């Protein structure tokens, strides 16, 4: 979804209630701030859930520092670009994402197709993302012993997750 005033992706979704009538707004971070400061200047009631006081701001700063342990993306980076860094972000930022998803979709529980592979598999996959990141760092730092360990671990996990279709059917 695009920001309603500029071509950036919309990352803030505001439901504003004026005299009992709800209006939806979709902004990128910059335009949202502009909109909110204008609303404040006009003396309008600020949309529910958006705190403009200092306490709220420090909370927001704290939130921005939040980073995914797997891919390292911070919540601030996500808010800026509107794209997440890895599947694990949905868990790492769950508390912050759920209200956003509710705003976008009106729902927070998937109801539809489920893949044949189990979510159990996904956990191993998240670990793979993390290990690959660590391997990159180890190589950059020339810690080859560590890199070798990581590579073995990655290979082991890869084997575990790449079960041939025939084996799966037997399970």
């Amino acid at each position, binding site marked *: 979804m695009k920001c309603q005033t500029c071509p950036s992706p919309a990352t803030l979704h505001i439901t504003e209630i004026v005299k009992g009538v709800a209006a939806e707004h979709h902004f990128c971070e910059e335009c949202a701030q502009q909109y909110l400061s204008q609303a404040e200047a006009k003396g309008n009631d600020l949309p529910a859930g958006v705190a403009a006081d200092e306490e709220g701001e420090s909370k927001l700063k704290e939130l921005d520092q939040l980073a995914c342990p797997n891919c390292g993306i911070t919540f601030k980076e996500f808010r800026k670009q509107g794209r997440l860094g890895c599947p694990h972000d949905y868990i790492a930022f769950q508390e912050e994402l759920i209200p956003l998803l509710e705003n976008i979709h009106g729902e927070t529980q998937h109801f539809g197709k*489920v893949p044949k592979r189990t979510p159990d598999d996904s956990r191993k996959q998240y670990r793979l993302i993390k290990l690959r990141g660590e391997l990159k760092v180890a190589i950059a730092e020339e810690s080859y012993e560590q890199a070798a360990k990581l590579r073995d671990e990655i290979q082991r996990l890869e084997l575990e997750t790449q079960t041939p279709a025939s084996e799966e059917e037997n399970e």
Partner: protein
Amino acid sequence: MERGENLAQKSRATIVTDQGRQGHTVKLDELIQSSGEWLRGEGPEADIVISTRIRLARNLSQFPFLTRADEGARAEIERILSGQIARLAARKSLNYFDVTSLQRLDRQFLVERQLISRELSEGQGPRGVGFSTAENVSLMVNEEDHLRIQVLRSGLALESCWQEINQIDDLLEEQVCFAFNEQLGYLTACPTNCGTGIRVSVMLHLPALVQTKEIQKVFQALHKIGLAVRGLYGEGSQAMGDFYQISNQTTLGKSEEQLIKNLKDVIPNIIGYERRVRTALIKENRQGLHDQVSRAYGILKSAQTITSEETMQHLSSLRMGINLGLIEDLPIPTVNELFIFTQPAHLQKLRHTSLDSGERNVARASYLRERLAPQN
């Protein structure tokens, strides 16, 4: 990682040697001789519904999304998915193209044919597309998500699109693990697509509603029930030639079947509305409408230089004229094709040379005169 990267490069090279860069160019150039099956103007309600399209957004669970994927990870994703596309190729007769090796003009050409998105065309790093010979299945690798599967059909064909895309998705899921969680469904780079990851779109030709400005009412009604309206080339594109894509806005919390049903319930109302307005226009002023359509035909048959915008506008009039029986010597598939073939990259491919905008206008007019000349 170095080892991994080397491996990835090697595999990519294998794919390139298998099909060959030369092979790509030849194959792409062959496409200009034909058009996609979805343009043939068949299928239910094909006078108003140009095409039905469904896409699914999928990501490999063991890799980060593309925002955090470096060159090596992107190459590895491309290696895995292009391998899967090669595996599907036997069943779906797919051709795979490494988009990084394509010239800008060729990428634009694929965008105009609706086989790739602008995002994939203008993106960075290892990426590709596999599409069927009939041009009704396309799998984009490393677009906004790792994989975007698309199925396209002529006319209103929601169920058959869903059956085919679901089958392709099932075949892929036998071999690869897509990012998924029980609460939020398929996990996508942008939270606006998570859940089903589905976008169901129907492309409508609505010249009478545009002419009478009734279209605004349609937009408002659609917005209220959570459906989005876009132009010919998707998000952010203008509605050229009175074409509108109607699609679902939300992807989480409803099943694929429910989301499809929403469109299935609404589209006939819009079709009925367009038909009623067309009938009213004929009833009120048949001569005026016949004149308008004939003039459009006249300009297209005889102009010496013409812009893309003017072409689209007249082709739209002409298309409505044929469907109302006001023009009898031209088949609908020809007009459908002209909408695509008069676009910049197509004209340049037809003329085998790069053309600036002025030259394109001359080439466009000349191409239109050729195609619309009476057949003797």
